[in-house]
Every structure is written in C-alpha cells, then in structure tokens.
C-alpha cells in the first residue's frame, strides 16, 4: 500500500514537493518508486539551474527504463541530494526522506494551487491503476 504524506503536494507525474516558506524540497512518490522498480541511477541538475513548472530537471534510471523528472513548480535549485550519486537506492528505501532529490526557491507561489493534496493524489493513483 503506497503512502501519501499529508505535508506534501503532488503532481500528475508523481513528484512531491514539501513547501517551507518560499523554498520547496522535491522528490518522487512512493507509488512512483514502486512502479519504477530498483533505481540504479539518478541524474540531477546543478545548484543555480532554473526551471519552469513542468520542465524536466533530471531523470531517474531503473533497471527497466529511464524516466524524466518534472518540476512541480518553477524555481531555482539551491541544493541537490549528493547522496543519490552513490546510493540511488535511497529513492526506493525512503522516497519522502533520504531519497529527496532537489531543493528549490519557489519563484511563483501561485503555481502551488495547481498541485494535488495527499488525498487528491491518492484518488488520482487509484484512477491510474484502474486504467491499467
């Protein structure tokens, strides 16, 4: 049973963002890591890079496929999880904690309105599953 922390907002591409003031920490959801399978590599941007909402900021490689990572909201990267270089499996083990990917300054807080809450995302995942 996938888990959906209440303190995050979610995208339709299965990223989460945990907002603190004007910054946000971003990763992929428990559902996403389970669907991908064993993660072997995470390619992340550099500190200082800026991205718009929905723009790909990196990719995550599992034994099955390489998938893009999309920005939940626009912003500038202020930190990158260096631990994932040597231990990409952290994304599988602790997607909402040690498996975080980047930290950004949020440039347009209004964009947060377009994201889903935990319960909305749970509903969304159920619909996705039905479609399979």
């Amino acid at each position: 049973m996938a888990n959906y922390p209440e303190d995050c907002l979610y995208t339709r591409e299965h990223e989460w963002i945990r907002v603190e003031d004007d910054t946000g920490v971003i990763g992929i959801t428990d559902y996403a890591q389970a669907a991908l399978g064993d993660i072997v590599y995470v390619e992340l941007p550099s500190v200082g890079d800026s991205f718009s909402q929905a723009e790909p900021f990196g990719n995550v490689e599992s034994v099955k496929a390489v998938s893009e990572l999309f920005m939940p909201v626009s912003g500038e990267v202020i930190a990158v999880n260096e631990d994932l270089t040597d231990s990409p499996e952290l994304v599988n083990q602790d997607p909402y904690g040690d498996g975080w990917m980047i930290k950004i300054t949020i440039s347009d807080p209004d964009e947060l309105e377009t994201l889903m809450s935990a319960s909305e995302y749970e509903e969304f995942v159920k619909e996705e599953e039905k479609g399979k």
Partner: protein
Amino acid sequence: MRYIPNSAEERAQMVREIGLSDVSDLFRPIPEKFRLREPLRLPPAQAESDVLALFRRLAAENASAGEMTLFLGAGAYHHFIPSLIDALISRAEFYTSYTPYQPEISQGTLQAIFEYQTLICQITGMDVASAALYDGSTALAEAVLMAERLTDRRHVILAATVHPEYRQVVQTYTKTLGFDLTLADYDRETGCLDPTSVRPTPDTAAVVVQSPNFFGGIEDVETLAERAHDVGALLIVVVTEPISLGLLRPPGSCGADIVVGEGQSFGVPLSFGGPYLGLLATREKFVRQMPGRIVGQAFDHQGRRGFVLTLATREQFIRREKATSNICTSQELCALMAAIYLCTLGPQGLREVAFQNLQKAAYLSRRIARLPGFSLRFRHSFFNEFVVRTNRPVNQVLRRLQQEKILGGLALGQFYPELGDCFLVCVTETIPREELDRYVAVLEQETSSS
C-alpha cells in the same frame, strides 16, 4: 525467426481482425504524394541458375584481394583471417541471432559480446566498451556527441590528420546541432600535429586526434590529452588500424577519455567496404552517456553467473528522441569475429602480427626512399603506413603498378591538395618479401623508362 508464408485470404482475415478494410489503411499517416501507387518496376523473375550466373559475371568484374597485391590501407586493412573465425561465426546460433533482449534465451550471444567488450577494454586501456557500433567513422561522430553531452560545450577541435572521411561523417552528424568544428593543421615536416599549436579553450568539448594518423604517423597523444584536460575538454583518440595496439601504448594510458576506431583489422574481411565494426571505449564515469549498449555480468538469486543487456534503458527503443544515440546498428557478428580473432592470436600473437606490419613497412619505405625520384614525405615514426613523394605524376605511378597486379597505394591529392605529389602506402603481414621487392622493381622500371 521462422519464415511463415500467408495466403491472400489469411491477410484479409488479419486486416478484418484489426478493424480495417484494406492493408493500405495502415499507411494512411504517410502523405499521399510519398506513397507508391504502382508496383515496383522490376525485371521479370528469373530461374535461380540464371541469377547465379548473372552474379558470377558481375563478381568477375571485380578484382579480389586474392588476385592483387594490396598496398592500400587508409582505414581498411588486408590482414590474414584465421579459418577458425568463419567456421565459428557460421553457426546459426550466432549468425541468425537477433538483439539479445531476453537473457534467458541469449546467454551465448551475450557472453560473446561480454568477452568482446573485455578484449576491447584490454587493448585500449579503458574501463568500458560499447557492444559495437556501425563502423569507425560513425563511432567517432557518436563520441563527439557524447563529449557534448558530458561537457555541455559544442566546440570541437579535429586534427587534420584524422581520416578525412571520418571528419566528413562528424560534419554530417553535427551539421544541424550548432557545433563549431575547428581543424588543427599538421606540421608540414613531421606529418603530425604540433601539440603546442592545438589550443582548446574553456568552450571546447573535445580534441580529436588519430594515432597512428592518416599518414601512418604516431601522434603525441599524451601532450594533447594534457592540453585538453587543462581547459576541461575531453580527448578523443581515433584508431583506424587497431593492429597497431599490439605494439603501441594503449590510448587509455596516454590520457584518452574516449577511444573510438574501426575494428575491421580484427578478422573482418574487406568486403568492399563493409559491414565493419565501430569500436568505442571510455572511462567508467562516462558510461551513462555512452551510445548504444553494453552487456553486463550479473548473478541470479542462486548466485549463478549470467549476462544481460545493460544501459539499454538509454537506447532509442525506450528513450526515443532522448536516447544517447539513434544508431540502431550493433555489429554483433563483426564483434564476434573480432573477439575470436583476438582470442586466437592472444597478446603474444597480436604483438607478432603488429611487429611484422612494422618491419615490412619499414623495409619497403627504406627501399623506396633510395629510388631516384621517390622520397618519404614526412619525418615521423610510423606503424604500417607511410607517405611517398614522387616527381612523376602519381596516377601514372599507381597505374603502372596496377598493370603488374599491384594496388600500390592511395593518391593523397584528393584529400590534401598540398600533397598532390604524394601517395599513401600500407604494408601488412600478408605481403611476402618477394612482393615488396617486386613493388620496388616496378618503380625502378618506371623511373628508368623516362
């Protein structure tokens, strides 16, 4: 794959099954003006015996390497091929195999590729090797694109001593991608790059050098690597004659970041220019930007060793336009030939073949240089190719040799206008000493007949 013919009725049934009325419905996305509306204009069918006779007639118009003595190199080399190779690759399991996506039924093919990669890593001195690309020139173009992905820069310095056709292929690949290609000229005396004249900048993705170079000369790879690395650029080393690696220091130990080349010398026949074998090897830290795929070694849950396609996740059938490469030709049968060749010779055998090439080329070059009207164009150490300068028309000299069933070399004027009075001569282990002497005798006649 089995050949299963199907009748018109069965085809109609299949079309109905997928809800179409006619096969042509499948092609509807293709604009009308590009679609073939009439049958192909082909001559009438012929009996198999007539077709075979026709091909025999056509084949007789060519001269094979067996009927001429070959002094042609320049990227395609006439080396001895052990009979073992043909016998082994003719096993249907190898030469009818398809991409080994399913490891459970492809262990033999996968293990062969794994061994090929291991051998290529050993002779180039690199960490990882790709499971074979289309040929040497496209492998170079792929390496240039790889350097751009790794450095996020688009300026590339190409040595003028890199095979001219390889440089053309790089131009074709990069034409629409906003690359800035600069040519680094060679020293007119040495026929090699003067490393101090190669000036990479902080915008340079890679410096590309070939060694032995197109003129046969050994380049100062180490100094070029330092110059590239000083500004964060990569050094790409091209090897069109990998037999040279039996004697030369591997590019990996001279600071190369990516080694590419043509593997045809390793047991692959000349075949009028193809199919050949693109080599690409690099450092482990660059592996995720490497085009194509590698075969990896893994262990199942019982601890048994097995082989499996690795990094295929970045190939085009999964990543589409975001793939590391859109070449889908993995020359696995040619890679297998190369693996068998290298295993047959072993390190000692490869050294021996390389040494014979070196000695025979040195012998012929010395004999030619003593002839009036002929000289060696460059002062440099060379492997099995060298450039001859003549005071007579080059084409006349080569025609004269051809009359004696000797393909004497490659006129260089077509590639290097300043070398209009020169031709490139290659000597491999296949040419006996009598033939080297005969070559010199024909040139002697040529000089005395004027």
